[in-house]
């Protein structure tokens, strides 16, 4: 079949007449019958990886006559990836005027973002565990794991570590990623790649303003020459916040919360690259008011606020150690702090809930292309979470009553290997990772992807993988003095097994469609339950959930720059514990984006549909909304480039089902929110 396949292929590809006349045939220059020679050589060629060696023995003239196929406007490298990857580019980020990572992910097929008005939560293929702080997805910033060490939280909303202007590309890799990345890569991996000083060259200053008293300022500077690249950025923003109406309760204590939904933050980032080294540093701080009275706090009390602070520093070295063997070595340090003040109806004062985590790690990764037809990736990483502190105390005029003061440390070692084996137009991608945790022991996770590049236009992928999420320190050791919550240090990792069949097709260079059938089975789901023996809440490995569904997407790029994309996903969920449908899960998610160039402007309209979702006690019906972005290409006013983004354009009443942390069944989303930014190149 292979021989026949090659015969047909190259018969089609070869020119019937050589198109290059040879002036002075020399030893290296073949005769005009080179087509025949080439045909013979090509027929004898092995798989693609052996191509170069054999090709190099051909003459220049012969090489010039070989046809190349499959050139596309889309980034086609994702074709061979062992996953149905979605890539978001810098152009898209600029054109949509996205303000957070959550905004971007909300455009990805099969994903949906929800909010409790403090953090953004990502639902992946119908699965969203309320208030799991996105611990089921792994967030990587330039390849560095950025989930914090206590809650394993991936910050996707305003608490995110990076300004969107600093992001070059975002890749969402759905499915289990533990065979390469380790913990948290249960539902997918979000890979954020930062931009360079070169693409920012010079200084840019931005001023922003929006409704609900929103304003922001940012400055960034890029410098680059042939050996180095520097990018520095600083920004600050604040918003007084919307007046939030919590009307869906009979409780008379609730109503309108004015001036409590405030939000403010600042971020710093620096990235310096020299030769084979890259140093990255990022810091963010974000303070949020609560208009929603969580955990039974007093409604309308402005003292309830929470602050998240994160820092990340990493030094990476990349080199080709020997031909075909690339080595990446990295040392990193991270810190995440959480400080919340809760206004409980206490006689003397408030309650304070703090956590502080710090870790350092080293990793080495080799990409080995020395073996024909194989790309091997292997590596090891070690992480020392040397400070993991959780603290809870009632504050007051009396000495503080400490309910929880838990300090500990944890270590973790992981080794992994992955091979991509190229056989003709097949790619076999197999990987295995072994992790050892000081807290609970070892775990092994395999992955297998079989990718069939049926043609340069069509790819079919059959994917199997398993992944895990290590129970985090919060789930294992948090308690409030055994008042309502107790610790459970015996938790096991949560596990997922996933099967997927994905298909990608390029109708022509501008038209792409993809579809995916998947099944995720999550076992030992870590859930919080009431222990009937003592009436205390604790995390337990209880649930078992299966999600199966289908995602379809299509996108088109026209030569004038118009872009259109559409996606729709349906999923059926089943919770084995209850034998019923999973809560917080929509059956149907659909989205459509259109982006049109209009002279010096580009207008982008996003339409979103989210199916009905349930909570244990109520239901949030299906909702749809639209967002608009309008950005100028060149400066228009006072020498500034202008960008405008309006979320919830038609001011629809939108809501998300609330978690048990809140007294309400549903929390309203923001109404129409507009944000204008003026950017000057200095």
């Amino acid at each position: 079949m292979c021989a026949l396949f090659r015969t047909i292929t190259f018969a089609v590809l070869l020119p019937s007449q050589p198109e290059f006349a040879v002036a002075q045939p020399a030893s290296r220059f073949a005769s005009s019958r080179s087509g025949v020679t080439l045909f013979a050589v090509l027929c004898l060629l092995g798989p693609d990886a052996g191509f170069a060696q054999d090709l190099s023995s051909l003459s220049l003239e012969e090489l010039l006559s070989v046809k190349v196929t499959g050139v596309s406007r889309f980034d086609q490298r994702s074709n061979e990836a062992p996953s149905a990857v979605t890539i978001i580019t810098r152009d898209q980020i600029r054109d949509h005027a996205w303000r957070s990572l959550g905004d971007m992910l909300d455009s990805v097929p099969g994903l949906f973002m929800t909010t409790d008005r403090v953090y953004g939560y990502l639902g992946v293929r119908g699965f969203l565990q309320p208030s799991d702080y996105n611990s089921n997805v792994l967030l990587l910033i330039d390849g560095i794991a950025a989930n914090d060490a206590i809650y394993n939280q991936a910050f996707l909303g305003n608490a995110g570590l990076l300004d969107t202007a600093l992001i070059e590309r975002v890749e969402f890799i759905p499915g289990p990623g533990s065979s390469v990345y380790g913990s948290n890569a249960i539902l997918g991996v979000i890979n954020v790649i930062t931009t360079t000083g070169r693409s920012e060259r010079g200084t840019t200053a931005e001023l922003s303003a929006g409704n609900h008293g929103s304003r922001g300022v940012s400055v960034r500077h890029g410098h680059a020459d042939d050996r180095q690249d520097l990018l520095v950025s600083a920004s600050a923003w604040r918003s007084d916040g919307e007046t939030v109406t919590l009307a869906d309760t009979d409780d008379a204590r609730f109503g309108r919360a004015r001036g409590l939904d405030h939000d403010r933050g600042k971020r710093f980032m620096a990235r310096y690259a020299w030769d084979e080294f890259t140093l990255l540093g990022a810091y963010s701080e974000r303070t949020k008011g609560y208009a929603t009275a969580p955990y039974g706090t007093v409604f309308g009390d402005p003292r309830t606020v929470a602050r998240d602070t994160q820092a990340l520093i990493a030094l990476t070295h990349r080199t080709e150690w020997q031909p075909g063997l690339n080595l990446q070595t990295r040392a990193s340090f991270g810190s995440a702090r959480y400080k919340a003040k809760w206004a409980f109806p206490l006689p003397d004062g408030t309650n304070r809930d703090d956590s502080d985590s710090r870790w350092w790690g080293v990793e080495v990764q080799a990409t080995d292309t020395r073996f024909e037809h194989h790309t091997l990736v292997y590596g090891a990483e070690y992480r020392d979470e040397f400070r993991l502190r959780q603290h809870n105390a009632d504050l007051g005029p009396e000495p503080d009553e400490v309910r929880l003061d838990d300090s500990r440390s944890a270590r973790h070692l992981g080794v992994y290997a992955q091979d991509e084996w190229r056989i003709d137009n097949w790619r076999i991608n197999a990987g295995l990772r072994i992790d050892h945790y000081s807290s609970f022991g070892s775990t092994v996770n395999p992955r297998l992807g079989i990718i069939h590049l049926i043609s340069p236009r069509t790819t079919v992928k059959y994917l199997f993988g398993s992944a895990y999420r290590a129970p985090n320190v919060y789930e294992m050791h948090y308690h409030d003095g055994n008042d309502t919550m107790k610790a459970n240090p015996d938790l096991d990792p949560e596990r997922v097994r996933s099967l997927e069949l994905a298909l990608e097709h390029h109708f022509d260079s501008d038209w792409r469609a993809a579809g995916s059938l998947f099944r995720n089975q999550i076992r030992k789901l870590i859930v919080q339950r009431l222990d009937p023996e003592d009436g205390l809440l604790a995390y337990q490995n209880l649930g078992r959930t299966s999600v199966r569904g289908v995602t379809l997407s299509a996108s088109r790029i026209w030569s004038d720059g118009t872009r259109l994309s559409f996606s729709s996903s349906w999923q059926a969920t089943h919770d084995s514990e209850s034998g019923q449908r999973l809560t917080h899960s929509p059956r149907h998610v659909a989205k459509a984006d259109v982006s049109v160039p209009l002279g010096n402007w580009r207008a982008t309209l996003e339409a979103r549909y989210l199916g009905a979702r349930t909570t244990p006690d109520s239901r949030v019906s299906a909702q749809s909304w639209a967002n608009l972005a309008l950005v100028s290409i060149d400066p228009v006013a006072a020498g500034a480039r202008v960008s405008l983004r309006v979320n919830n354009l038609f001011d629809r009443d939108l809501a998300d089902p609330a978690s048990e942390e809140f007294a309400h069944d549903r929390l309203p989303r923001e109404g129409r929110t507009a944000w204008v930014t003026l950017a000057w190149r200095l």
Partner: protein
Amino acid sequence: MAVVSAPSPARPPRGSRKLGAARRFLGKWALLAWVGIAGLAGAQTLSDVHGLRAAMIYNLMLFVDWPAESLKDTVTLCVITDDPDVSRPFAELAGKTVRSKTLMTQRRAPLAKIDDCDAVFLSGLDESLLADKLASVAGLPVLTLASSPGSGAMIDLALAGERIVFDVSATRLRSAGLSLASRVMQLARKVHH
């Protein structure tokens, strides 16, 4: 972050019999789609652009004359790229012979120095980095090749329609003290004098 709820049931399932049937249907559908698409689309194949380009660069180097004093025992071809797919075929060229010397190929990071190379192929670099890299070897006997027309390199390999073609800047070759065999010049799409 104190209390976290768990997913729990909401509404009774709508008949597991239906779900089972749907699953069987989906299974069949998937297999059918795969087979169908494989059959329909099977008349084409991938062509290895990177391998082809690497082979062309090797071929071009066979016809370059470096100043006698500039070459050591080996000829070093540096591939400046972030993309292992681009550099992979070059690793397989190492050990071949160029101007009766052994060819060494090295992949280097985009920000690495290149003035100790005899030839450099710059691929996938930002326009301004490409300009900076080329400026850093201006006047040196370093053959520069790039994969974007008008890049400012001595030889540019470009995709024209479905073929790889090359443009030559005789001026830049000359100012670096290099020369390219005239019969190769005749195969070039364009020669800038």
